[in-house]
């Protein structure tokens, strides 16, 4: 089915999220929609999926204008969507999940699970999905859960499939499988809209690429374009995809984690006997697919999660008896994973957020027992630091929620780096940021490293890990699979992220390249010509 957008505009108040967007997705085409976080990709897709009504413009399916009152209409018209965060119920089986909302029934409204099950088998057989219809969702790996979502869309006869950042939660190998599936779907005539901000994937799978920036289409191109060209289009200026940095000059080991074990509130082991050593002036990136215990490890270092075993040592001092406040005061800089829930308080002003973990110490507080806030001192410090970190904002008295994500993160960094640090820990410090802010965050972290601070960065993006790290520790299901130098290939790292030990991963990677790395090699060869 052919999907065509003509001048689709969507506004929220005075903000134009989509500005006269026109694009055509031909039948049997993989059309990549490339853009930064906040460029308006998701808004556009939600408009197509019937969640928003466009303020202007029209959507056409096979040259017929359509208008949807909700996702139900869109699904009925043959549009399927796989969201970035899956809409699955963990305790349901695959069959139940696929049937949910469109349950086939027999007489008297009794659910016909047999029919539903056959449908699952039929679709997964057609595309070689290898999904057990009776498996429970929670038992399936993420890649398989995503396939369930795809089956769900296909079971409703989707002719246009929208995949919203489908690779965000996948290992490189799972991504590879997804790419194969996308190819099969295309060959069977399904049109695919593939939303992403990852340049490598786009070049590996897309037939055509539409780049949007600030809500408007800025270019249509083919996968032949180089990554630098694509990045330039996406950001609107030339970008350095890698941050220049001097080789690390590691000093002594000053931070170590020994045999650390952390349980979830449900008493499951989420961090399993982890050993780490970080030297002064070194960045250790903890890589892995989201949800493999990295966040809990970082939280244990901060002290908001109590480990059941193991020790955390900073300069030979055991951190266990210290409260969060004492750890921060002792020189721990911590950038939490989820900016909006853990990093800042949205309703607080920029100033208040800037002093969020120093508000009760001099010079920000005074009087007996440091009970009185010194507003002028706070404001002045916030102002100075905001300028130093190039925070774009109305004023330091504005609520921080009025700032963009990148600028909020800069405030968090400014706060954490305003102290003399003995250890810097950041959990996914660039998640959801635009390229400019990512560059800034990376440079700031490297500067901190060059000051001699040991840095631990949790990252789920392989690109970031390779860009930032001096060494990479790969985590899978709470364990450290291996600690490897930054020269390790993506394929090996990808396999390790799926739990394959280093040696085995090397062997497997030697015999089997992923499509992405092949595309990389081809691109490199081309550029070298």
């Amino acid at each position, binding site marked *: 089915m052919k999907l065509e957008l003509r001048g689709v505009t969507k506004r929220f108040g005075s903000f134009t999220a989509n500005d006269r967007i026109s694009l055509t997705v031909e039948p049997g085409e993989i059309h990549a929609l490339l853009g930064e976080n906040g460029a308006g990709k998701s808004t556009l897709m939600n408009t197509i999926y019937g969640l928003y009504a466009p303020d202007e413009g029209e959507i056409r399916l096979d040259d017929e204008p359509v208008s949807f009152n909700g996702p139900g209409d869109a699904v009925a018209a043959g549009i399927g969507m796989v969201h970035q965060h899956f809409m699955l119920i963990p305790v349901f089986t695959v069959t139940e999940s696929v049937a949910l909302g469109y349950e086939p029934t027999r007489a008297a409204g009794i659910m016909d699970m047999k029919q539903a099950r056959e449908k699952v088998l039929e679709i997964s057989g057609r595309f070689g999905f290898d999904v057990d219809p009776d498996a429970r969702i929670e038992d399936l790996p993420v890649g398989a859960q995503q396939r369930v979502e795809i089956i769900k869309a296909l079971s409703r006869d989707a002719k246009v499939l929208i995949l919203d950042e489908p690779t965000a939660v996948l290992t490189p190998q799972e991504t590879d499988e997804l790419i194969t599936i996308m190819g099969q779907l295309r060959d069977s005539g399904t049109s695919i809209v593939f939303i992403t901000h990852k340049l490598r994937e786009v070049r590996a799978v897309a037939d055509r690429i539409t780049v949007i920036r600030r809500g408007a289409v800025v270019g249509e191109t083919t996968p032949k374009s180089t990554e630098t060209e694509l990045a330039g289009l996406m950001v609107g200026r030339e970008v350095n995809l890698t941050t220049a940095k001097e080789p690390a000059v590691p000093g002594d080991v000053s931070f170590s984690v020994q045999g650390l074990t952390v349980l979830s509130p449900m008493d499951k*082991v989420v961090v399993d006997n982890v050993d780490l050593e970080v030297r002064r002036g070194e960045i250790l990136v903890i890589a892995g697919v989201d949800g493999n215990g990295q966040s809990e490890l970082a939280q244990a270092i901060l002290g908001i999660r109590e480990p059941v075993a193991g020790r955390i040592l900073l300069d030979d001092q055991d951190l266990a008896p210290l409260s969060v406040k004492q750890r921060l005061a002792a020189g721990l800089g911590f950038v939490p994973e989820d900016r909006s829930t853990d990093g800042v308080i*949205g309703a607080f002003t920029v100033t208040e957020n800037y002093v*969020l973990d120093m508000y009760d110490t001099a010079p920000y507080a005074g009087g007996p027992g440091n009970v009185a806030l010194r507003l002028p001192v706070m404001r002045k410090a916030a102002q100075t630091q905001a300028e130093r970190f190039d925070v774009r904002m109305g004023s330091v008295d504005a609520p921080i*929620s009025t700032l*963009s994500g990148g600028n909020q993160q800069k405030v968090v960094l400014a706060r954490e780096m305003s102290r003399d640090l003995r250890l810097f820990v950041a959990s996914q410090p660039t998640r959801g940021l635009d390229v400019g802010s990512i560059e800034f965050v990376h440079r700031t972290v490297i500067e901190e490293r060059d000051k001699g601070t040991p840095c631990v960065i949790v990252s789920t993006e392989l690109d970031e890990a390779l860009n930032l790290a001096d060494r990479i520790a790969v985590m*899978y299901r709470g364990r450290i699979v291996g600690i490897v130098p930054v020269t390790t290939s993506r394929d090996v790292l990808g396999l390790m992220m799926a739990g394959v030990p280093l040696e085995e991963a090397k062997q497997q990677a030697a015999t089997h390249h992923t499509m992405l790395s092949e595309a990389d090699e081809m691109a490199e060869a081309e550029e070298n010509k």
Partner: protein
Amino acid sequence: MTDSGSQPGTSPAQTSKQEGPWAEAEGRLSRALRDLGQTSWLVTVLSVVVALVVGAVLILGANEQVQGSLSYFFAQPTDFLETSFQVLREAYSSLFRGAVFDWQASSVERAIRPLTETMVYSVPLILAGLGIAIGFRSGMLNIGGQGQIILGATSAGFLGYALSLPVGLHVLLALAGGIIGGAIWGGIAGVLKARTGANEVIVTIMLNNIAIYLLAWLLKQEWFKQTGSNQPLSSSVDDSAQLFSLLGPGFRLHAGFLIAILATVFVWWLLERSTIGFEFRAIGENPEAARTAGINVTKATALVLIVAGGLAGLGGAAHVLGTEYRIAGGIAGSLGFDAITVALLGRSKPLGTFLAGLLLGGLRAGGVLMQAQTGTPIDIVLVLQAVIVLMIAAPPLVRTIFFLPRADGRPRLRKNRRRAQAGGADESASRESTLATASSGSAPTTTQEADK
């Protein structure tokens, strides 16, 4: 990949937030509280207007003259309208004369007495309302104002007649006793919440009941009431422990009103200018971020309810030492619950709470005259209060009534209904996508507006 036991890898983003449904419900509660505290002034004022209109309808409905004229409405509609106008004018003007200024009074003293009466009624409302407001700002719904007032009044009153101390010292000690009594009562809920996660709403409601029966029991004990009679009424507070009169014997206005002013300033300083208040507001707005920033959430949670209880206790103390002088079973009336209205109406801000306390005090004072002069039941005042709360709790309702734009700045148009429908049809998808847009920042303006 078949190991079902270990979650990591299978459900991204879930592992970090496995706090169970209670935490989720708590989160929703504190979000609702935050929204309540942040309704705009306009909505607050319009809520009062709506309440007056609803009150008007009820006054007319209860009035026999109006009912009479309604029976021949179609023959002579002007009669009905005229009567209605007359009745309403009388009712509301007597309400005003009873609350602010009586222009029909024979002397200046009598003309301004209504205002002082309003101030008298407002003292415990303001003090307890400040306590509730601190709770709101800190993300806690303290329903225990009633119990805390009872404990404050009981302790202060008992110290007031059981001890013999010099003037000045006696009243200070009695007031301190009131604060401590309320603080203990609030602190029980605070410590339970901080230590065990017990929901403060439930605990404070239960503590209200315990306080009522504790007082009933005390009023049967001779050592406590010291009257020698069987009446469940304590003896009268010594002169040395009474709050001094501000305007002389013709008026009931006492120094409690000064205490209310001081407390308002103190609460403002506490919330806006002190590190303690910074912690309070931080845990109210975002406890996770507060915890990550090293704030001791447990300690702050307990402290919030201790301070809130102390203020309510002070309100009870001022009520006994300045107005009532004797402790009876119904000493607190419905003050504890009216205080919640006061805090809501004042948008949980100290000055707002002060003004709201005056307004409700005025309704109380004026209601008495209204009933006496026009026969309008004083219960109308309760209805006004209830409607105000209802309106404040549902800002969209007020916006609809007055055709105001939505809080998030979006025009109220067909699209919103559409989205609502979409939400109904595929709620999770819709919610998720809104989240996705919010987090990816596709619609910064909307999310920001909503955050305000």
